[in-house]
Every structure is written in C-alpha cells, then in structure tokens.
C-alpha cells in the first residue's frame, strides 16, 4: 500500500487541473512505500515529437504542433530533461529517495496507456501515479508499477 500526505495528494490534483487540457507531470520523493513530497516538472511534449514518432506513438494523421486544433501534444508528456535532473538531485539532497513519477490523464481513465507502459520500460518498477480528470468534479488518482510490460496496481492511503 502506498501512503501519501493529503496536501501532497491534493497538490497532484491541483497541478493536473492547472495544466488541463494538457497533461501535467512530476516526480515523487519519499521512503519505501511512503511518498513524502511531490515535485511538479515542466511538460515539454511539444519538443519531443521525434521521440514519440520513432516509437510509433503518434497516431497517423494527428498534428503535433502544440497550437494546432486537436494537437496530439496535449495527450503526451515529456519531462523537461534539465529540470528532471535538477529535481532528482534535489530529492537526493533532501535525504529522500526517488520513488517514481506522476502525470495526469485530462480526459481519460487513471490507468496506464499503451504509451505509458512502453515508456515506463526506462524506469522499471518505479511508482507511476496517474490522476484522471475525466470526471472533472471527481478527480481520481491511482498508483501502478510497470515491469516488463506488465501493469500492477497498488492501493493508495491518503494520510491526514
């Protein structure tokens, strides 16, 4: 079971709401099964077009330019690498462990997509929190790990 303080849990939801309709993303620091702090990271999906394209993760006919109507950029996240590195260092310096990441699904369920599962291969077995805003009044956060393409879910206990 994953434990997380309520204010940090709420921070994930608020970040997701701020970024919508784009995906929000960030990193998780803590110890063992307890998340102690969440760290928002800038989503640079619009700069990673080749990264997604060479993995077949852009559906044919979809426009990638961020401002184009129906752009796929709003349905992807790619953490700004320099910021990601800086935050990972900050997590370590503060004595926490890097436990995983979070991101939002502004319009779909809180379950790893094919894209999520494929790209989780770079970070096997790390925690993957997904915040769904599919029902805007009732955000849903669920926790997963992906190992060799297999998704397993962990329950979340929000601590007051």
């Amino acid at each position, binding site marked *: 079971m994953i434990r997380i303080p309520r204010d940090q849990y709420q921070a994930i939801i608020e970040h997701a709401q701020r970024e919508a309709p784009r995906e929000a993303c960030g990193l998780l620091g803590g110890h063992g099964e307890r998340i102690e702090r969440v760290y928002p990271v800038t989503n640079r999906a619009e700069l990673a077009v080749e990264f997604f394209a*060479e993995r077949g993760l852009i559906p044919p006919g979809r426009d990638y330019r961020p401002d184009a109507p129906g752009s796929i950029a709003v349905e992807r996240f790619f953490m700004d690498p320099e910021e990601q590195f800086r935050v990972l260092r900050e997590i370590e310096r503060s004595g926490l462990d890097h436990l995983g990441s979070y991101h939002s699904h502004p*319009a779909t369920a809180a379950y790893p997509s094919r894209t999520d599962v494929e790209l989780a291969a770079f970070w096997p077995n790390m925690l993957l929190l997904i915040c769904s805003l599919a029902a805007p009044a009732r955000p849903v956060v669920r926790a997963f790990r992906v190992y060799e393409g297999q998704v397993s879910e962990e329950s979340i206990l929000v601590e007051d």
Partner: protein
Amino acid sequence: MAVTILIPAPLRRFTEDRAAVQVEAKTVTEALAKLDELYPGIRERICEPDGRVRRFVSIFVNGKDIRSLQGVETPLADGDEVGIIPAMAGGR
C-alpha cells in the same frame, strides 16, 4: 582528472547499486568508456553503437545538458559531475 558519474536508479543494477562512480576522464566519451570498463554493458544502455547518446537519454555536465555544450566531446575538469537520466514520458 577525477570526475563523478551519477547513475540513475534504473542503471544501478549494473553498478552494484552505486549511485555515484568516480572515473578519470577528460571528455564525456572517455568517462562513459571508463564506466563501461568497470561495469560492462552499461554504455550500450546510454549510447548507440556509433557512440551517439540515445535519444531517450540525457547527459549533464554540472547540470547542463551536453546537447547544449559539445555533446559527448564535452571536456571534463577535475571534480566535474556527469549526470545520466533516461527520459520520463508518457501519454494517454
């Protein structure tokens, strides 16, 4: 020219769980070669066979992405920190 290479969690299974490894190197290429001598197989997780850094990996020298420096030929000085991280990405 001792530099410190920071190993990301997913690659620590190559480094006996070490988060940081010290090597003697004057460039990033040389640092990666030395790292691979110590922990065979780790370099191919980071670089293409032709030596270019894989697109999903970023390498940093003192926090600066080497793509904005001199790539794998970026020179290293004593005490420099070389960071390696795989991309973190996904989507609905």
